[in-house]
């Protein structure tokens, strides 16, 4: 399903089964906001943040307004795996 979305929109795809995000990245996307919009900040490369989402167009307006000099790359990931990553992150907070 997520793979179809990725192919359909020409976006990269990743699985998040064993992924644990760097807690610092939640300074970019606050955890409550990430949970609400079902997104996971994955990695900052240079001036670009990779964000995993099950949607090709997640609502990242807060991110863009707070970080006007940051590029954002969307990576499609399965929704249930995103939820599990965020649950783990919440437990660890």
């Amino acid at each position, binding site marked *: 399903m997520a793979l179809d979305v990725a192919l359909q929109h020409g976006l990269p795809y990743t699985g998040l089964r064993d992924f644990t995000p760097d807690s*610092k990245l939640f*300074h*970019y996307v*606050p955890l*409550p*906001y990430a949970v*609400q919009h079902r997104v996971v900040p994955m990695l*900052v490369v240079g*001036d670009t943040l990779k964000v995993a989402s099950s949607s090709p167009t997640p609502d990242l307006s*807060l991110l863009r307004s*707070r*970080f*006007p*000099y*940051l590029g954002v790359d969307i990576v499609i990931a399965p929704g249930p795996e995103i939820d599990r990553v965020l649950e783990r992150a919440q437990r660890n907070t």
Partner: protein
Amino acid sequence: MAGTIQSQASRDFYRRVARHAGLDFVDLDDVQMNPLAARLLSEQICRHFQMLPISYADGVVTIASPEPPQEVARDTAISLTGRAVKFVVAPAEQLRAAIDRNFAAWPSDFDGPIPEEWQDAGGGFTAYRVTEPEFPVRIGDLLVARGQATDEQVADALAEQHRTGSRLGDVLVSNGVVTEPELVAVLAEQFQLPLVDLSEYDPDPAALELLPEPLARHLRVVPIAVDENTLYLAIADVLDDDTVSALREHTNLELRGFLSSRNQIDELLQRVHGKDYVTVARSELLTRFPEESANRVISDGQKAFFIGLLVLIVALLIVAPVPTVIGLIGCASLFYTATSIYKFVLTYNALGHQYEIDVTPEEIAALDERDLPTYTILVPLYREAAVLPRLVNGIGGLDYPKTKLDVRLLCEEDDDETVPALRQMSLPPHFKMVVVPDAQPKTKPKACNYGLLQADGKYVVIYDAEDRPDPDQLKKIVVAFEKADPRVTCIQAKLNYFNSDQNLLTRWFTTEYSMHFDLLLPGLDAQDVPIPLGGTSNHFITDRLIDLAAWDPFNVTEDADLGIRLHKAGFKTAMIDSTTLEEANSELTNWIRQRSRWIKGYIQTWLVHMRHPFRLYRQIGLKSWVSFQLVIGGTFIFLLNPIFWALTTLFFFSSAGFIQQLFPSFVFYAAAIQLFIGNFVFMYLSVAGSVQRGYFDLAKYALLSPLYWGLMSIAGWKGFLQLFYRPFYWEKTVHGLDHHDDMPVPAGAAWTPPPERTQQGPPA
């Protein structure tokens, strides 16, 4: 090693966060934090939002946070600090450590949870209510929780805060909702600072010695105790970074603040440093510009010159008496004529022009009250208890935010009438009584200098106790300073009288003032020559006034002298079309006392600035030099008048031949022209001044002005002779003789003190 690498990686990460957010990055291990600024937010707020104030400069609080603030965090910071805020990014672990350090040193007395209804899904605050007494964090919450204010009062104060830009606490005090001590107690709780009551406190002399008096006065702090590592300071507000740095640099000690009220700090400073203040008030001009001080009536050079001149005249009188007297009369006539023509030209020109800075009602209406600066009003008082209610009403009627007024009532220590009366009055919170320690010379300028030492205002003005300034005068001045030539340092409002119709003397006085302030001074202003300032309603830029060493305490017309010194320093005085109504002296002996002081002061001023006539000429140029001679030096005419009147009278009644000899034709015609045309001109100008002001009924009294000039000459001789034996004696003018006790209270002037509270808690 691994820790260092990890720490560096963390710094790099947060540096990138800052760059992506467009904010500055701060390494908290490298910066010196302002520990007093850090108390602007409570521990709970700092931990909840992960933010900490680290510095305070130029009215802006810098707050460190590991990420750019969400809207709710920013709003909370602005609301709780009551100041503009700027966020910077700092590594999270550094920030946590800084919060721990900061609040470990000063334990918090509040550690309750943030109520759920204040939090949204994102963990931030939802929209604020006006007050939240169940969760008292802000001043308003705390006051409502303590039963010292109602939600409506806080709401009103918030609206006023929005309009004026003043601090909420100041508005609440100004509105009479709480007293200053109550506010300070609440602020101490809010900032979690310890509170100190300074009313009975004697600071540790060792601590006082650590901070020189001028620095303590400048920074408005009092060192109250000291130990090996820490200096304990009484502060009225969080100190900004520059102050903290200055104190650290000076003392090499850590600082710890104890909150107190501004008034208590001012009073303690006066108690501890009163003698130093008096020395500054008395000697500042004398120390910095000794040649400008009237502490010597006459310089050695002048003494030699006048003695030489006297010897020469006596010698000439012996050798050739008639030609000598003719020469003297000729010179006097020439001086008379020059003075008359000059004043006529100045005032006549002013009749057809507006030389004052023009400020329109639209410009005043367009003022944003948030941009208005603090304004200091100095009111020197001496044995004037009777006019105090009128004073409070007069100043209360000014259309200016009360929170931005700093009214200082300057009383002399030995004034056993005004001081007790003031202590018994319930004064509005922006009125402060300042008791000037007893010291000579006991003059108004010395009291004003003393008051100026603690002035908070960007601008400062002097009013007399009985003054009634136009309600919009201060706002007009603010606009005028913005529009005026940058050299303008003083703006003089016009003076006139509210009791002109009391008797003949007050009518004459009013016609004179109408000509002087409505025509002569604007005329001088237009010529860009020195203006002798009026005794009150002269508005100054405070910093420049202090730079000039303010008023000369030895000069009994310090105002006129300051006008000349301003001009010499390259500054300008401008006039404005706004009037302050005063009480015209209605009693003859009282009037003569006042006028004799004025004339004595003008002669003092002339002597001071003529110690070096050529230097004065080089400093101010020919035009101003001549104007100075004719306007200030013109005072000598009052001394000459009786001599000429006596000669004229004697001649008419006796046709004494020797008088004819003294007035050969060329001198006679000059003197006759002066007598008839000069008198006509001055009467005409007195009439013109009255008509210009709209006092048509006074015009007829102006025609009797020659009688008034006779009184002036009596006062002139009294003042001149007093210069020899009591040069600095201040002939006090008695006020309150006008019987106008029915002065209406202007809208907004009334002041209601806060209710007496015997116990804390919500009102029943």
